[in-house]
């Protein structure tokens, strides 16, 4: 059978063999946790604890500010030793609450579990907000916002994203395999909130065990597991919707414009914890991998754990890493040091050696068209990039620069080693900045 997919995209080597078979391990508590107040898209949280305060695990330490914002919780019990700017995965120092763990890891007062048969929809949404749930695929968009579609946009389909198309990463894979019951509970909550019954779980065909397990678990539910072709970026929201239900989200629009809400499987599991057990988002599963590491692992990590700790748990490094990437190799962010903490969007940590770092100088574009064929947004990356380099942003915009989803397929496929997606991003920023000004 032809597997479902989208036009465009490419097949980078998936490198999942290092960690795919490794069961999830709990990462031990570090002595000190740095919990950034901005870990999501939107306004950062406002700290509500002061230096010297004793906090319990799960206690709110930063409050949401505005609609597109979420609170931040203490990942363990201990003493607040600083509220100041600390290195953040974004690459600069940003406000954070620093907690010295007392080792007892004692829970604070949790919110009462909700019964979804009784609880109102607003109550459920409020709970998701209070527990600080954000999109855990990496975009970290507050989940309650996504689950509050306006009335004029009726939702009829829920899609769970279990694609995990980034090479190396296996965190979602392990989650689906080992903790499918959390995901199923989460689906029930999401179905209730959105008032939908039609639900799909999209999984790339390179995870047959996860597909089988979820298919069996969902046999009696109105949930269908869809195996998808192994292709990057199959997990990009709009591409996933097209593959699963054949609807194309209009350019500049959102999934809700075609009646769909997409949630990552990790987010779904976190929602289940929040609603059914009252547990806020203070930990997540992350894949620690890469050739510079002694052993690749899937770890359950407390938010705020320094990356150095994760590396230690994996047996340290074989060689000096040349590049530290938070997230996957296609869309992840390089890090300045291992001192930055893991945050809610940390789906993985990759350590590359000098061999994996391509320092090949860029050449001229030979117009081979590989980027055009690979582009899942169906734009002309090389043309936009050429205009961006000359600061001709109006032309770049006319060539649909704003439709770029920054998946990196163009740069990946470029024989001239041109930083295409970076140029397009540069043009996008300039175009959006100009729009804001006007």
């Amino acid at each position, binding site marked *: 059978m032809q597997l479902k997919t989208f036009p465009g995209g490419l097949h980078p080597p998936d490198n999942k063999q290092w960690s795919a078979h490794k069961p999830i391990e709990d990462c031990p508590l570090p002595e000190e946790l740095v919990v950034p107040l901005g870990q999501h898209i939107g306004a950062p949280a406002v700290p509500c604890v002061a230096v010297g305060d004793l906090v319990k695990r799960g206690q709110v330490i930063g409050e949401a500010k505005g609609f597109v914002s979420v609170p931040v919780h203490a990942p363990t019990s201990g003493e607040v030793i600083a509220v100041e700017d600390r290195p953040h995965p974004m*690459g600069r120092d940003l406000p954070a609450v620093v907690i010295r763990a007392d080792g007892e890891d004692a829970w604070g007062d949790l919110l009462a579990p909700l019964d979804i048969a009784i609880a109102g929809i607003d109550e459920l949404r409020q709970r998701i907000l209070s527990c600080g749930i954000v999109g855990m695929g990496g975009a970290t968009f507050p989940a309650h916002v996504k689950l509050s579609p306006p009335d004029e946009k009726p939702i009829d389909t829920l899609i769970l994203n279990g694609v995990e198309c980034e090479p190396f990463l296996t965190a979602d894979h392990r989650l689906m395999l080992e903790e499918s019951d959390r995901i199923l509970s989460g689906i029930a909550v999401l179905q209730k909130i959105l008032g939908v019954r039609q639900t799909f779980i999209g999984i790339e065909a390179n995870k047959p065990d996860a597909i089988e397990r979820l298919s069996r678990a969902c046999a009696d539910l109105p949930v269908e597991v869809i195996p998808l072709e192994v292709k990057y970026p199959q997990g990009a929201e709009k591409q996933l919707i097209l593959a699963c239900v054949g609807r194309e989200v209009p350019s500049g629009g959102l999934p809700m414009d075609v009646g769909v809400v997409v949630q990552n499987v990790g987010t779904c599991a976190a929602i289940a914890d929040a609603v059914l057990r009252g547990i806020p988002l203070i930990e997540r599963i992350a894949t620690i991998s890469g050739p510079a590491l002694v052993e690749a692992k899937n770890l359950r990590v407390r938010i705020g754990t320094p990356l150095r700790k994760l590396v230690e748990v994996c047996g340290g490094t074989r060689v000096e890493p040349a590049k530290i990437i938070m997230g996957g190799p296609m869309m992840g962010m*390089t890090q*300045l040091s291992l001192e930055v903490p893991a945050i809610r969007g940390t789906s993985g940590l990759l350590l590359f050696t000098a061999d994996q*770092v391509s320092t090949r100088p860029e050449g001229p574009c030979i117009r081979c068209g590989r980027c055009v064929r690979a582009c899942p947004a169906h734009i002309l990356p090389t043309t936009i990039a050429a205009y961006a*380099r000359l600061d001709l942003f109006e032309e770049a915009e006319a060539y649909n620069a704003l439709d770029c989803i920054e998946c990196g397929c163009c740069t990946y496929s470029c024989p001239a080693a041109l*930083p295409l997606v*970076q140029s397009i991003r*540069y043009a996008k*920023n300039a175009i959006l900045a100009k729009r804001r000004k006007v």
Partner: protein
Amino acid sequence: MIAAVISLGGIGLAAAVALGVAAKKFAVEVDPREAAILEVLSGANCGACGLPGCSAYAKAVVEEGVPANLCSPGGQATIEAIAAIMGVAAEAMVPQVAVVRCQGDNRKAKNKFHYLGLQDCNAAQRIADGPKTCPGGCLGLGSCERVCPFGAIEMTADGIAVISRDKCTGCKKCVAACPRNVIAMTPRPATVHVLCNSHDKGAVVRKYCEVGCIGCQICKKTAPGAYLIEDFLARVVYEQEQDAAPGIEKCPTKCIRDFALGYPEGSSFKAAESRPEPEHAA
């Protein structure tokens, strides 16, 4: 002969009538002053006036009464010409020149990481705030050089921007292009500048840059009144600039430079060309 005259005349007459009718029908009003102003403007379309191009500025002057003294590339002559066209008094404009407030090239200042990718300052700045450790240092990837409409900026081999005082017209394009605010507009007569943009404490600056201002106050002490120290960074008080010379000599990190005596190391620009104009030219 007569036939020739009549027929040609007839053709001409017919054409004239047709054009006359058309002129009425398709009349477009243009203020002649607009064209006149456009004529005297530099035509660089640099945007120094804050409007998108010379013709937009000409239109704005005529129709919206925008001041006549905004064309910095044209200088005083242009201002007077526009004022004459508009029948208003010419207001003086202090001519300005852009200065790169950094000398920390790749040999003198440290980087915190190797940057790979698009060779553009604004793109590099988005990756962990740029590779240069100094938060205010020139990244040396030439974004300002590319936007300069007058070819007044060059990048040295060791990666720092230098602006020619002869070619710079003060259009401010480079100021807008620089992500780290390294370039400042200064009054043209002043040639002495502190070439550093770091507000870090002296001890911190010393760690990452050989030629950064460490806020040691020596310049202020040796040339009283000519320098100010704000936030661990010295700057020249341009009104008292004539007294600044002793401070240059004494500066321990050599971050103060008199452009009348020479451009930073590695630049191809010659100081001899840049004799300062008479004091207070305006």
